């Protein structure tokens, strides 16, 4: 089983109140070298069988139509990893 990872971020030009709140909390911890935080989403989609072109095409379509809303978000990355464990290990 393969895993297709989809990453979605709030549009760069829009305010991200969640990221702002996190950034302020970092500042309170004395971490003043970080000037901004933006918070996005990562989806790990497990595929029955190989993550072939058809599966990738389906996920790419769903990334645009369901996993993100193009009015307020951008899909910033779609890639394949071997498994959920591998996805965790990469990071």
């Amino acid at each position, binding site marked *: 089983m393969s895993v297709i990872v989809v990453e979605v971020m*709030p549009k760069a030009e*829009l*305010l*991200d*109140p*969640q990221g*702002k*709140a996190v950034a302020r909390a970092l500042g309170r911890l004395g971490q003043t070298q970080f000037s901004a935080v933006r918070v996005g989403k990562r989806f790990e989609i497990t595929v029955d069988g190989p993550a072939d072109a058809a599966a990738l095409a389906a996920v790419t379509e769903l990334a645009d139509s*369901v*996993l993100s*809303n193009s*009015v*307020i*978000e951008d899909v910033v990355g779609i890639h394949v990893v071997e498994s959920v464990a591998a996805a965790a290990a990469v990071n």
Partner: protein
Amino acid sequence: MRIGVVTFPGSLDDRDAQRAIRLAGAEPVALWHGEHDLHGVDALVLPGGFSYGDYLRAGAIASLSPIMAEVIDAANGGMPVLGICNGFQMLTEAHLLEGGLIRNEAGRFICRDQQLRIENSTSDWTTGFTANQEITIPLKNGEGSFMASSETLERLEGEGRIVARYIGVNPNGSLGDIAGVTNARGNVVGLMPHPEHAVEAGFGPDTAQAMSSGVDGLTFFTSVIARALVNA
């Protein structure tokens, strides 16, 4: 007139919407998200709440519900549809209305009686208002900041599709102080504030006359009823 109110998992204001419809003089019909059946209603309300706990994006999962296929068909056929708060979010997610809603600018959930100016009194849900009438109804949301591309915003403004604008204070950072919009046809309206909570004296916002006596929200519901009578 029969007006359907769709209940989704996590809807909160479905019963209040039904009550508002009853007080306005129509018959409320409870509809269920999991059915493919509008039970022959003449208009629809998508109520407020936190469907699916706002998972994915507010209104996103509900916009994929079975009944939404029928809601989208009916809306495209001209049936009046009002989305309130979470219902507004669903209508944008279902592409029945343009724009989108993001977290409030200040990062806080806002709950207050909100002054609005009704700038479009020709939509199916606002014909009972006079042009630029100022009203007060409750507002309560965490993700009510209206966003749209500059081209979309320009088109909405140019076509008079801003239904309501915040006045006094912009509570959530919405572009252009936008509180509600309509589609080109004027049958689909999305509103962030809650008209269904200002429909009965004693239970509404305070007014200059008396505490809790505000019933400005009722006009949205009486408007759609009057509209139906004209068309009958």
